[in-house]
């Protein structure tokens, strides 16, 4: 079930990279570039255990945001968005649990399937946890310009 306005969904579908921001134990925002994977309802990101500090932060505070700002990473689109939501870490099986998202991931990064066949070369990179974000609120800049106030929508509701 779609929970986000169509333009934001389109951005999520197109984005090769987005900026995940989590809140650390001191209340500071920490931003990580990651590939956003959207299944039409929730946003997923994956994190290698090598770079798992973000997972520690999310376990301590599940309030996160994902921004999509880079026109180059979205095929030239100039609109921008930030999605705020509640995140949880899914890590029942760091070895293979994340592979259920491989079909969506492959659409954005086709080489990942090849790299997975070379898992022996970089085994810890493929030990991964999933970050599942349930969108709560979205800010959208149709022209991508912060001089204009964003359109704000809550998940499942129309833009304000």
């Amino acid at each position, binding site marked *: 079930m779609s929970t986000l306005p169509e333009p934001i969904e389109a951005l999520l579908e197109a984005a*090769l*990279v987005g*900026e995940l*921001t*989590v*809140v650390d134990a001191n*209340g*500071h*925002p*920490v*931003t*990580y*570039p990651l590939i956003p994977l959207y299944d039409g309802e929730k946003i997923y990101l994956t994190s*290698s*255990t*090598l*770079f*798992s*500090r973000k*997972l*520690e932060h999310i376990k301590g*505070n599940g*309030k*996160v*945001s994902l*921004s999509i*700002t*880079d026109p*180059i*990473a979205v*095929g030239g689109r100039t609109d921008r968005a*930030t999605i*705020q*939501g509640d995140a949880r870490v899914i*890590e029942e099986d*760091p*070895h293979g649990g994340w592979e259920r998202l491989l079909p969506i991931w492959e659409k*954005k*990064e*086709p*080489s*990942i399937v090849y790299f997975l066949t070379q*898992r*022996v*070369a*970089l*085994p*810890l*990179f493929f*030990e991964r946890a999933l970050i599942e974000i349930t969108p*709560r*609120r979205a*800010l959208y*800049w149709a022209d*991508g310009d*912060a*001089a*204009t*106030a*964003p359109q704000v929508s809550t998940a499942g509701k129309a833009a304000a």
Partner: protein
Amino acid sequence: MAAIGKTPRTPALDLHEGLAKLATYPYQILTFVDPDGYPVSVAVAAAIDAAAGTATFPAPSGIATPTDADISLSGSHIRPQPGYGYDERRHVTVWGRGTMSPDGATVSFAAARAWGWDEAEVPFFEYSERSTGQSKKYFDALSVERGTPVKPRLSFGWLALRTTRLPFLSATIVPVVLGIAIAARHGSFDLLTAVLTVIGASFVQLGLNVANDVFDTAQGADDANLTPTKFSGGSRVIQYGLVSFRQMAGIATVFYVGAGLIGLLLLALRGSPALLIIGVVGFIVSIGYTAPPLKFVYRGLGEIAVAIGFGPLMLLGAYVVQTRGALSWEPFVASLPIALLVALILYVNEIPDRRGDARAGKRTLPVRLSKPTVIAIYQVAAVAAYAIVVIGVVVGQLPIPALLALLSAPLALQVSRGLAPNYDNPYGLMAVMGVNVKVHLYAGLLLLAGYLVVLIAGAVAPSVNLFLR
């Protein structure tokens, strides 16, 4: 034993350097935590003064930028590669406090700290290696959370391949089969003991490979290495938590015990003092390669130990098993180019390891010598390997078809040319190391092919002399 998983983290980023990097991005991402506790990000165009540690940017419309809490400015870059994914990854974040101008139009930002990564400066593989400790921390925490050990995994096949470094077994197969072939030319061949020799010698190398990781970990060399490649830096299975230190020690023991038992069986079947001496010396060289007190590789003697072990010892050992102890110069001469080329595999593989080796007190030749000297030694040794083949043929010790080995010389030239431009780039050197492994393999196989020609000729036309004597 050195602390596993204590590899240094990504190099720290000075805030001025962070701001200077941030200034190179076409826009900056302002991020802060809103009153509801959620982060919010908005793209802004900041004017950055890296030297002063400050930035200014227009206050975003409709969003209140806090002045009583930390805010951050980030830059993020990728280059899309259609059909592949992307590359040129880099990002930087600078944290600090913001001050609003009296008219509320501009935010002044005073930077306090910075963090980032640029794969052009720290290659992804090195970045991953530096982060090994974070992965260990993750699994340790998950194990505590679940009350049961949780470890990273690989399938058994891949794990066995990685743990034993099985593909390097060519270093054993080549000299052993060559020794058997030369013995066959001399009229001695026994299939059972030939097979047992191949298996036993392989066990010695597999034991050596695993023991090497055990002792390098114990002495801190593998933990100090931040730029391992598939050819260098060990198997890393201990560092990655895939196999425990104790398990590795057990695996090495099993291989050595297996090799010892096969050696005893061969002694019983084909016993000779020469085989006993070769076996004992081989065991000492193998164990002493990294193990105290000998630690040949830590003293700059690793290349010599490998040359002796995977050259004359392997080849003559296989030869005397077949001949029941009879020795001759021919297998010794044939072993010399193999010895030099196998030593050069180790030698080149030590180049990317040299900084970590130096930190761990492992005084290999590339640690001790300058870049020009290291490259010159490679060239001299490679030329010597092929010169020995030619001289061996000229003086009648090697058969004329042994000259087939010269066909691999262009590969050695390729390695020689690739060393200088990639000397300080471990990942660029990977391709060169791969070719270098092929130099030994192909030279050995071509020598073997030469002996097969001799054997076939001997069977088909016994009167034809393929030696210049």
